[in-house]
């Protein structure tokens, strides 16, 4: 893993230089969701280790994180917002970035402008854990996202991971330990 850490350092140094050039055109407007009382909470937890992805038989694109989903129903005549958070002890292997995003019925939660580049190293848009993790030096990560308002209906809030882009030599593996996926429903 030392090799990946070193490569990661160099890659991120380059990223910083690039960042300085691209900042002015990269940010979207600030968005605000103002919600009322939290009416419902769903929590999924696991002690793990939960390994997502495969080095040798990877799946390209976004894949569901097993267990990290919640089904929520908004009652007739109501509207609601969703707030979701994933917290976990992480280990990201065989790839610079282990990316995570949240969706509601397949639609991205905020902040997310859809400009994620799965082939870029240290693309901060969705980075959850990185190759700076090593088996002996791991970190606790927390990501928070929100979306809404939504009308009455049935919704699935889900966490997904991106660990392999077509053409890469092998896939990444994201391992979560003592993870929690929490979805709060608030009146809109």
């Amino acid at each position: 893993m030392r090799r990946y850490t070193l490569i990661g350092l160099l890659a991120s140094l380059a990223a910083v230089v690039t960042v300085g050039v691209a900042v002015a055109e990269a940010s979207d407007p600030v968005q605000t969701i103002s919600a009322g009382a939290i009416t419902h909470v769903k929590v999924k937890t696991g002690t793990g280790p939960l390994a997502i992805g495969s080095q040798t038989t990877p799946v390209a694109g976004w894949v569901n994180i097993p267990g990290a989903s919640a089904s929520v129903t908004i009652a007739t005549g109501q509207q609601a917002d969703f707030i979701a958070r994933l917290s976990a002890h992480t280990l990201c292997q065989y790839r610079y970035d282990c990316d995570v995003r949240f969706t509601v019925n397949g639609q991205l939660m905020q902040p997310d402008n859809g400009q994620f580049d799965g082939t870029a190293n240290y693309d901060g848009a969705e980075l959850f854990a990185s190759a700076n993790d090593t088996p002996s030096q791991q970190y606790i990560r927390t990501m928070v996202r929100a979306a809404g308002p939504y009308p009455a209906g049935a919704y699935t809030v889900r966490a997904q991971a991106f660990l392999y882009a077509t053409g890469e030599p092998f896939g990444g593996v994201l391992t979560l330990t003592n993870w929690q996926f929490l979805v709060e429903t608030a009146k809109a």
Partner: protein
Amino acid sequence: MRSPRLVIILAAALVGAGAVVGVAEAVTSTQSVTGKAVSGVRFVSQAGMIRVDGQAQTSNWVDIPGATATVTIPASTNGVLLANFDAFSVCSAPGSGPPACGWRITVNGQPMNPDNGSDAVMSAGSNGELRSIQRSSNVLAAGTYTVQAQALLNDPAYTAANPLFLTNWSLEVQQAKA
């Protein structure tokens, strides 16, 4: 569905002078705040990347642009605010000296708990990582409050400010009855 009752128990470890003189002499205190149901949520976010600049050779906290929320605690009631700020963060140092950036969250200009005066220092250097902090207020009386995420981008010991790059940041503020 019964509204979930929120019980907030905060154990805030505040490290004082021990941070300078060594762990053995650290001063630790704890605080406890108890709240009830969460009555409102503000979620402020920005997709993409922003740059936050500091000021050379000062230790001033600067507002993270846009990372603010205003909440009102109704008349004749008390409230507690819970705040979370998270972002993919790159702390860089164009000048000499080691890079270091800090985050804190304030309510009407006062740091939320825990706060030991040098909050959430990140020696992120060139390594971008997902970072988050969670803070809480004391029990607040009725009134209007502004919650603001701030960054400390430099240190008097360094010769230049350290720009901070944030991507896909979010500030969440939950308002609980007290």
